[in-house]
């Protein structure tokens, strides 16, 4: 008998998500957002999702909010660094009371995932005592133990997790590039270890076997479903492969800001052009254009 491959296509993995699920997404700032799957989820018209992204998240979270798919956000922040200090759809939806936000910082975000990974009812953490976080989150109590104050951090457990990675093999080993911006990995392992259901990776390429066994330290997550998705993080960057398309971020941010201020047309146009218009990820890639994408590519490493 031969070893089973774990390769899937985007439509198959998008179909695993149902309304109301808790969905974990990779993406730290501009890096590694699983945008191809995000666009596929929006095209499915999903509702009431809880998005666990970050620790500090960006485009993947904001686009899902802007398209009306999200009820609750678990993230330490939603922002595009200096393009947009506060992500526009996140800001609009939060100010209108359309989404709930689990207020946390990056440490608490990781600890909530750890509580899930470790199977614990809570973990105690000293950071964040004396802040507004316990007031804003009913499930984040400030408690006293042995005379010291702590936050009691509940588990956060995604039903399904989507990660974008540089490469994966056909058997579900998801891998970082050899060289990558600010290091190789962000929260991929934390999300995968906390997940109760499938972990799906979109990978820039599928790597042959020999490469993987020769550098096991680059494997971030194993047991994933693998979808080969070149340019799957665009407009975000894919660590070690291409840099973020900041011009695209600026266009998106301007459209989001216009909608926040009452003009819905540019945002709707963005969704039509980049999300609803292209039926498949390959169509999206064509709307951006190969030349522009090649200009974002990093030197091979």
């Amino acid at each position, binding site marked *: 008998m031969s070893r089973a491959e774990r390769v899937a296509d985007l439509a198959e993995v998008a179909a695993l998500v149902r309304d109301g699920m808790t969905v974990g997404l990779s993406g730290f700032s501009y890096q590694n957002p699983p945008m191809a799957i995000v666009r596929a989820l929006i095209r499915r018209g999903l509702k009431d999702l809880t998005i666990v992204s970050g620790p500090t998240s960006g485009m993947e979270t904001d686009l899902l909010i802007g398209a009306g798919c999200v009820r609750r956000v678990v993230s330490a*922040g939603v922002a595009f660094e200096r393009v947009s200090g506060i992500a526009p759809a996140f800001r609009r939806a939060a100010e209108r009371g359309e989404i709930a936000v689990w207020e946390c*910082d990056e440490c608490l975000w990781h600890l909530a995932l750890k509580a899930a990974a470790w199977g614990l009812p809570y973990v105690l953490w000293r950071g964040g005592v004396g802040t507004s976080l316990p007031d*804003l989150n009913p499930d984040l109590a400030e408690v006293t133990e042995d005379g010291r104050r702590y936050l009691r951090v509940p588990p956060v457990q995604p039903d399904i997790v989507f990660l974008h990675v540089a490469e994966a093999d056909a058997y579900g080993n998801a891998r970082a590039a050899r060289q990558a911006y600010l290091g190789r990995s962000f929260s991929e392992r934390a999300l995968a270890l906390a997940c109760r259901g499938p972990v799906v990776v979109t990978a820039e390429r599928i790597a042959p076997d020999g490469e993987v066994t020769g550098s096991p330290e680059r494997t971030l997550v194993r047991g994933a479903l693998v979808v080969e998705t070149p340019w799957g993080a665009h407009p975000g960057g894919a660590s070690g492969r291409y840099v973020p398309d900041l011009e695209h971020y600026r266009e998106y941010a301007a459209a989001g800001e216009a909608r926040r201020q009452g003009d819905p047309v540019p945002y709707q146009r963005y969704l039509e052009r980049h999300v609803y218009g292209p039926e498949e990820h390959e169509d999206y890639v064509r709307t951006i254009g190969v030349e522009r994408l090649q200009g974002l590519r990093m030197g091979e490493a």
Partner: protein
Amino acid sequence: MSGEPELARLLACVVARELRDGEIVAFGLHAELLLVAALLAQRLHAPNLTIRHGLRVERGAEIGPAAWTAERSSRSHELVEYLEAHDAVLDVANPSSPMRFCDVFLVGGLQIDREGSTNLIGIKGADGRLAVRGPGSIGTTSIGTLARHVILFSTEHTTRRFVETVDYVSVPGWRRRAAAGLEGGPTLCVTPLAVMDFADGRMRLRSVHPHTTAEEVRRRTGFPLTAGPVPLTPPPTPAERAALEIVDPFDRLAGFDLRPDGGPR
């Protein structure tokens, strides 16, 4: 003072003077001015200052602050070889380990109040409900709570930024820390107009920058600052200027978004 570039240089010097040899300093990933300040301190008086994200002064000249941005022109991937370390996950609370998160934390906020609490969560409207959504507390809350030494940094000095009491607390100031059983509190607050420090858990004016006046600083602060004569912030020394040219060879500081007037009224 001749406008923004000179102001950015002054603020980098002010922050650098506060950083001590042997400490670990942490700040936001894209906070170029603070990166320059830390590189400056390494060159001048703190060769064993560890910058959280792993840069060393010997390599600073090749890097330049722009390498910390994701701007394509900086080819940020090429930066990686200059990083000594990167921790993907922020989950350290042990203050004794050489791997502890930091000793000094530089942090800002949408609002900063009299006792030094910060807020990145949002701003309340007249009805007491959230009216302006902030980005979220990002990496500030736990690190700001647990750091031994917090320095506040603000790119504007306005009554909307400096308020009597923050609407939400991302990082607690003196009174809130004491109530939660935490020692200490923020020690300094650096703005485009002034340097403030704290006495009895309340912010007070330590010095004003040469291009403004104590009167203007008080007008732009949403709570009373102690009266009395206030010295001028010492300008960059020749040694500081020489070191700045080395750590910031492309004068990235000149492009830093700072309002010498403190920002909108």
